[in-house]
């Protein structure tokens, strides 16, 4: 059977080249997104001397955290061929719940977080149930949710702003890790990457697949290490890694794992790619769909806790239009609204692009109306260019 084994090995072995070998499976569209981001940063850096300072970059990462967390949940929903328009209102509502629990009832932080997350998940469950088992289009269910949740928030707060005074709560959005701890985290991350590269190599060897030369694997580890260290040193040059950004990293890693390494995640891609095929393969589509909305609701609650803490209060219009920012981030990051394709990593880059635009234009003192126009044009342009490039490739 030696020849058979050999043939299988050849079949499985991919021969990637150059940069793709270095960074692995992140697709080509992600690179163009990163390119766009770098151009935007350089442009703002040239136009305004403070844009690329550690202080402003630190702010930028804090600013992007809420949109990013919403975008992470949104990616999978869009990949499955649905949409969630309610996340903005849900951020407002769960933020209100958190503030009421903390201020009016004086609950300790752990209880506040637990109940808020539970509320987000339950609301997601309700919407998911209506979409999956009620067969009502997600667009309608979540459009209804967008209006209704805002209404509940107004009723609950009587239209007033509820301030938060619990110092522990306020830490979530405002704290920074000490530089030393930041370096410790960097070391941890680099070890984790090294371990995963090694683990993957060992697994491939076990199955008799060809492995990349050791030098490539080492180059890969070095490449990511440089990025991580550069990031940590930049943040440390100001105060340290902002606490909210850690949530972004954690959830991004978690959801990247869910999307790519679990049956659940791959089923979501299959459902969005060809729902008939998914059904005929025995995938429980309704259950999968419902869970997606639970996850989205959960992430909205996480975003709400961060936002409320940063603003040190819950306002009635908190989170307004956030769903559109999240959707824009996904789409700029290469998620197809037709379903079936999209990456967490792309959505993060998309969120960073959107936030950089906000931040840079504010620094330049551009009037608000211009900011809206520029963001709108960039969104359509980004997707237009993407479609154009894919057409050319095809």
């Amino acid at each position, binding site marked *: 059977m030696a020849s*058979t084994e050999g*043939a*299988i090995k050849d*079949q*499985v072995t*991919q021969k990637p080249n150059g940069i793709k070998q270095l960074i692995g499976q992140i697709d080509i569209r992600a690179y163009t997104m990163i390119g766009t981001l770098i151009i935007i940063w350089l442009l703002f850096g040239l136009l305004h001397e403070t844009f690329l300072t550690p202080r402003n970059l630190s702010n930028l990462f804090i600013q992007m955290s809420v949109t990013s967390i919403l975008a992470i949940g949104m990616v999978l929903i869009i990949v499955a061929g649905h949409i969630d328009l309610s996340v903005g209102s849900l951020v407002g509502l769960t933020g209100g719940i958190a503030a009421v629990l903390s201020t009016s009832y004086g609950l300790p932080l752990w209880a506040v977080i637990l109940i808020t997350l539970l509320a987000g998940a339950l609301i997601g469950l309700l919407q998911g149930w209506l979409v999956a088992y009620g067969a009502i289009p997600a667009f309608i269910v979540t459009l209804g949710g967008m209006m209704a949740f805002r209404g509940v928030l107004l009723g609950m707060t009587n239209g007033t702003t509820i301030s938060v005074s619990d110092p522990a709560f306020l830490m979530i959005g405002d704290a920074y890790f000490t530089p030393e701890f930041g370096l410790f985290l960097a070391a941890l991350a680099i070890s984790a990457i090294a371990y995963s590269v090694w683990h993957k190599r060992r*697994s*491939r060897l*076990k*199955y*008799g*697949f060809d492995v990349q030369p050791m030098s490539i694997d080492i180059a890969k580890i070095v490449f990511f290490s440089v990025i991580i260290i550069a990031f940590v040193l930049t943040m440390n040059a100001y105060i340290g890694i902002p606490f909210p950004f850690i949530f972004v990293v954690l959830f991004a890693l978690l959801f990247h794992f869910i999307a790519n*390494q*679990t*049956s*659940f995640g*791959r*089923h979501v*891609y*299959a459902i*969005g*790619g*060809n729902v*008939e*095929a*998914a*059904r*005929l*393969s*025995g*995938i429980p589509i309704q259950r999968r769909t419902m869970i997606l909305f639970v996850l989205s609701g959960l992430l909205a609650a996480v975003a709400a806790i961060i936002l409320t803490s940063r603003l040190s209060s819950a306002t009635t219009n908190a989170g307004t239009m956030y769903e559109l920012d999240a959707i824009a981030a996904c789409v700029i990051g290469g998620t197809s609204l037709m379903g*079936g*394709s999209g990456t967490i990593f792309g959505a993060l880059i998309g969120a960073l692009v959107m936030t950089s635009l906000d931040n840079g234009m504010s620094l330049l003192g551009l009037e608000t109306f211009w900011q809206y126009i520029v963001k709108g044009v960039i969104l359509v342009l980004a997707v237009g260019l993407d479609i154009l490039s894919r057409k050319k490739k*095809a």
Partner: protein
Amino acid sequence: MYALEMVNITKEFPGVKALDRVNLKVKKGEIHALCGENGAGKSTLMKILSGLYPAGTYSGEIRILGEKKEFRNIKDAEKAGITIIHQELALVKELSVAENIFLGTEPARYGVISWDEMYYQAAKWLKAVGLDISPHRKVGTLGIGQQQLVEIAKALAKNAEILILDEPTAALTETEVDILMGILERLRKEGVSCIYISHKLSEVFRLADKITVLRDGQTVGTFQKTDVDEDRVISLMVGRNLTEYYPRVERTPKETVLEVKNYTVWDKEQANKKVIDHVSFAVRKGEILGIAGLMGAGRTELMLSLFGAYPGRKEGEVWIEGKQVKIKSIRDAIQSGIALVSEDRKRYGLVLEMSVHDNTILPNLAQISKWGIIDEIKGYKHSTQYAKELKTKTPSLETPVGSLSGGNQQKVVLAKWLMTKPKVLILDEPTRGIDVGAKYEIYHLMNQLAEQGTAIIMVSSELPEVLGMSDRILVMSEGRFVKELDHREATQEKIMQAAVGGK
């Protein structure tokens, strides 16, 4: 002891009895062909067996190795060892070949997929179906035939005891069909039972041990292959003897209608690859020109390009009734009197949710409109007339086309193009996936149209059809016409020889 028994299965849909006390018994290691016209109930029966119609929605009993079973869903049926390969490809184009093979049965621990295991296993199964591609490739980048083989690999990977194949060879080339036959024969030796559904009786007789014929939702009977022949099975399927399967009419074609000179088409994806290479041909009034060739020979591309529907660059001259025409779009083609019935009616031919009437008038709105406003009465006059002329079986003109049988859907496609009053009617695989009775009616219609002076170009992969219907046959191979045959001298052997590149 039977591997599978389906006893007295009755299934009703609102207003229709789709299955009426159907019986099917399959032994271990037997290839059992299931024959019947479209609408005879084959697919419904298989949907019950594979758990798509759960227990309780039908009456009757399913027994596996003598033990009564009730399937609530696809998973239940799979657990009992039943796997189905569907007629329409059930693959996710954005996912890799390996992921598709293991979709729903991913090798995973605690829900975490073991990717290397999956690719390793996938490569084994790909080898088993003779497919030499990387399991990392996205399914969307594969050809239709390759996708069908992936589908088969997917079924095999489930280690089925009972394998159901629903028209598995519709998209396969001759070599791929041979591979499939080899696989099935190997499975038979390993004791796997196969239920084989196919319209192609030659395959059925090459492969099957037993044949069960269904007609109008009832079992006509189960026969040993050696006890019956193709003609007998056809007559059992349609319930009458088809004395003349291909109704040949002798005609004398008149003046030339369409002339194509030095026509070249470049690939839509690779701009410097020619799919059609300097071809010239002509069709005359009242003639049926058959175009034969293997899949990928460029037949469909040529037809689409002439119809202005192929995105690749083209060069050459097209003359209609002695005048040179420039066809830049489908509109141009329709106005010049060309109509095309595409090979995939569900994707390109019909808007399935729209009614028979709306589909018929769709390309003809200008004809029945004034100042952009549709004259509905005029429209209905046309759609009624065509439904009657083509004997379209439909409850009403308002019925959504998607709910009709394949043959009747094809008639609606024909109606909409006939209404454009074409001088040249191009038919790409006009009888693919439709039943014997409807086929016969379509052949008759083609004869009628030729009689009335329409020039017909028929692209077909079914050689008996090409031989039976064409006045003249052009054989295409690698983008060129390699042989021209008069129907009196043409044989299957001559066509195949030319198509595979011989002389």
